[in-house]
């Protein structure tokens, strides 16, 4: 048992020092018949055996990097510089705790401060927190925050919002008896959500680029929301888009939530990811999650601490703004490192490379018989309407080594109208060869 430093001589000496004869004497409060239960599990294994067993499981999966990959819809395959993964594995970052003792946690605190700065700048907002679990839970927290701020109870969900974000938000809001109004699926961004905002509305939640890839103008929605005393929550699931698009802050959003996975974090089959959460300075005391702030130490040197913790569960308990305890620490670090490497110049270029890849892919696929490109606008993701159910096509292409995108039935299984839709993402990782392979195999499948 390589992870345990004691040998039996140590254990005996320690038991003696404690004054008991055997270890079970320390478990004497446990009901006798419940102690030393039997388990149907294997005994310990060496490193090599574990590697072998898990390696077999890993080999049954098709990694995004194993061939052409066009899957997006909330998680994106991007290239991550080698520097990122090296730094996040440094012991001092990997094996530290939440920075409760700031004198010996300035490393964590300073990168959180840098992260908050980056997120605020990217989203065009004044402040950001130190991250949420992921974009979808951030979205639910934003709706709860809007309820707190506006003291109103109705939440409007755009038909372009990722359905899983909608579901997570609904799950959380049902608990507190809020009204959640979901607009119908809006493939081509033609809904008029602004007209549905009324005086009861706490917030309207709109995603751009939306789940179909459409770029939406949030300005008129923000204006309508503000006219009714409601807040606009803008959702961004593809963080690279910040490099190419007008920020939600510039368009009047009150809260911006996003999935930060695209910057610095691998796909990891859906987690861990890093939720972005930004808002206006005036709302900071209503924010959920950890916040890192600047201060000075006893010698007057600049330093950083967790702050405004009177919002949080460990101080406020039943009056906290959220029950959240952790953030996505290490994923936040990965984001911060990658963003530092990119800088403004690198991010803008990377964004345009993504846009270019998507334009090329859409042009090629649009030529295939039985394929219609739905979008008028998009960043690095768009939606196709196929001549038949997209699920079978995706399964067939997967057999042939192409991860073709997300079929409508995966996201809206109970809505037949969506089943011919195929959501396709193209990032900087996609090559011309990948696009050619995809088009020809898609033509074969239709």
């Amino acid at each position: 048992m390589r992870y345990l430093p004691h040998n039996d001589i140590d254990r005996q000496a320690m038991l003696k020092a404690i004054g008991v004869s055997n270890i079970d004497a320390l478990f004497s409060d446990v009901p006798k018949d419940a102690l030393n239960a039997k388990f149907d599990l294997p005994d310990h294994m060496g490193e090599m055996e574990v590697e072998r067993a898990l390696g077999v499981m890993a080999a049954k999966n098709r990694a995004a990097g194993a061939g052409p990959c066009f899957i997006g819809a909330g998680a994106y395959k991007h290239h991550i510089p080698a520097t990122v993964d090296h730094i996040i594995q440094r012991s001092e970052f990997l094996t530290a705790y939440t920075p409760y003792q700031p004198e010996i946690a300035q490393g964590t605190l300073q990168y959180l401060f840098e992260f908050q700065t980056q997120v605020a700048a990217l989203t065009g907002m004044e402040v950001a927190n130190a991250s949420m679990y992921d974009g979808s839970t951030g979205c639910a927290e934003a709706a709860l925050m809007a309820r707190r701020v506006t003291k109103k109870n109705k939440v409007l969900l755009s038909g372009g919002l990722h359905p899983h974000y909608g579901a997570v938000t609904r799950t959380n809001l049902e608990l507190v008896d809020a009204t959640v109004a979901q607009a119908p699926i809006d493939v081509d961004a033609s809904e008029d959500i602004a007209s549905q905002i009324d005086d009861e509305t706490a917030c309207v939640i709109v995603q751009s680029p939306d789940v179909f890839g459409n770029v939406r103008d949030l300005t008129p929605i923000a204006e309508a929301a503000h006219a009714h005393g409601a807040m606009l929550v803008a959702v961004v699931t593809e963080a690279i888009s910040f490099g190419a698009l007008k920020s939600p802050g510039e368009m009047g959003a009150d809260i911006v939530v996003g999935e930060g996975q695209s910057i610095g974090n691998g796909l990891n089959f859906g987690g861990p990811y890093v939720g972005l959460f930004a808002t206006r300075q005036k709302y900071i005391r209503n924010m959920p999650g950890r916040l890192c702030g600047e201060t000075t130490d006893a010698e007057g040197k600049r330093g950083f601490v967790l702050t405004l913790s009177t919002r949080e569960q460990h101080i406020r308990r039943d009056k906290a703004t959220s029950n959240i305890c952790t953030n996505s620490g290490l994923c936040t670090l990965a984001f911060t490192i990658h963003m530092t490497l990119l800088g403004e110049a690198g991010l803008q270029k990377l964004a345009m490379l993504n846009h270019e890849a998507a334009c090329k892919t859409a042009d090629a696929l649009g030529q295939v018989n039985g394929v219609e490109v739905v979008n008028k606008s998009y960043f690095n993701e768009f939606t196709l309407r196929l001549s038949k159910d997209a699920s079978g096509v995706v399964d067939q292409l997967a057999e042939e080594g192409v991860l073709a995108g997300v079929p409508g039935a995966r996201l809206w299984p109970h809505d037949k109208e969506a089943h011919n839709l195929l959501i396709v993402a193209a990032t900087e990782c996609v090559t011309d060869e990948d696009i050619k392979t995809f088009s020809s195999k898609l033509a074969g499948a239709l």
Partner: protein
Amino acid sequence: MNNQGRPTGAGEATASNVKTFTGNKALQIEEALSFEIGSFEQTGVDLPEPASNANRLGGLDRKSDIGLPGLSEPETMRHFVRLSQKNYAIDMGPFPLGSCTMKHNPRLNEKMARLPGFGDLHPLAPESAVQGALELIDTLAFWLKELTGMPAVAMSPKAGAHGELCGMMAIKAALEARGEAGKRKRVLAPESAHGTNPATAVQCGFTVENIPADKTGRVDLEALKAKLGDDIAGIMVTNPNTCGLFERDIRAIADAVHEAGGYFYCDGANFNAIAGKVRPGDLGVDAMHINLHKTFSTPHGGGGPGSGPTVLSEALAPFAPVPYVICEDGKYSLVETRRAAKAEGESVESLGRLTAFHGQMGMFVRALSYMMSHGKDGVRQASEDAVLNANYVLARLKTEMTPAFEGHCMHEALFDDRFLKDTGVETIDFAKAMIDEGYHPMTMYFPLVVHGAMLIEPTESESKRELDLFCGAMLSLAKRAKAGEADAFKAAPVYAPRRRLDETAAARHPVLRWTPAQKAEAAE
């Protein structure tokens, strides 16, 4: 050796408080914010020039600057390495944060999580392309169910607090299915509970009341019974509790709550004391989250990511969140919507979706790698060693410090501040002095039921030699405090990268970000 080839002598030890030009102290190097080092033009990645001018952004392309300087690759590396050197970490020494469980994080787990078949796998790839991932989730679920003796487990909660939310939501859904959600609104939790417990209950629309503790630091069973009634939704009890004690009356507590028609949520933050020894399912628990980042060694990463799978009893299993993995004829698939989860003719419904995808897969791989390495014998030995270490610390320190309660403890030893009475030294000063001795302080001022609490959780990762040194340091500090060295304690830490920080000022005038204006000012 110097350049004459002569051995260098140690020289005279003189003044230790030398002011340097750079502000650096040898290996402790001051580091500015990345924004103050970099420039708006700089980038540390080489990307090809976009070949076309395609623009289908709907007229919404970015026209303004973002305002974020970049760094070259070597500058980035140095920046973050220097920052890392200002952190304490479990890989450097004991990190006895009670209730947080800072144990060794094996690097095999990191290696396994980075296999492309796990780390580079898209959550929405077709099921045929992710069979191994679903198998891993199912295998981990089996281990968790087996170790807890519970029939079902919700894998998607993203952290411990999220698992609490999952469990309490399942309780709410079960009450709704019974048609009693309207009248059962009260949740009871001990005063010693983690703050997440009451916060979670409120987030579920419940009200929270305290369960009184008895003088041994455990739930007062009779007082609890007096608070039960037909308006009770359930109780939230941590076991072993946050005083580091096993709830002796756990079964009677469960029975009383069940008799009153409520459910028993067990906060599993301290499962690491009993894993492989005791199954919570044998104690009457209805729901319990498991912090994979505590009990099963996935790294804390400076505050996350966590992972909080939540085991559920027969009564709560039908309300488990989506998505979940099922296996038929050796083929794995996912149930992803409430409607798909609903059995034909059944009225019960899944509590819904907690997160966009399937949970913290990266943490699942690490946890399973750890569990397979340890096996059932190792998991049990780890729990025993954790309890042994805590009791050893308790036995060694009680000569100078004051244990909060009599008797043995489980995996953490709780002291109060009686031993500091009239010394002028407070718990926080004691904690800061530990920093100068090279230790991360224990959890302080928690649980709330003990005055000036000091909660020490050494975990199974510490050797006897390491514990002896730690105890020696603690005893020496206690003696120094009693000997009237309060001023030195108030000044601590002096050897850390920063002295005590002004948290009051930080909260009064929140500065939560750097702004480009600061760069312009600096340039002038």
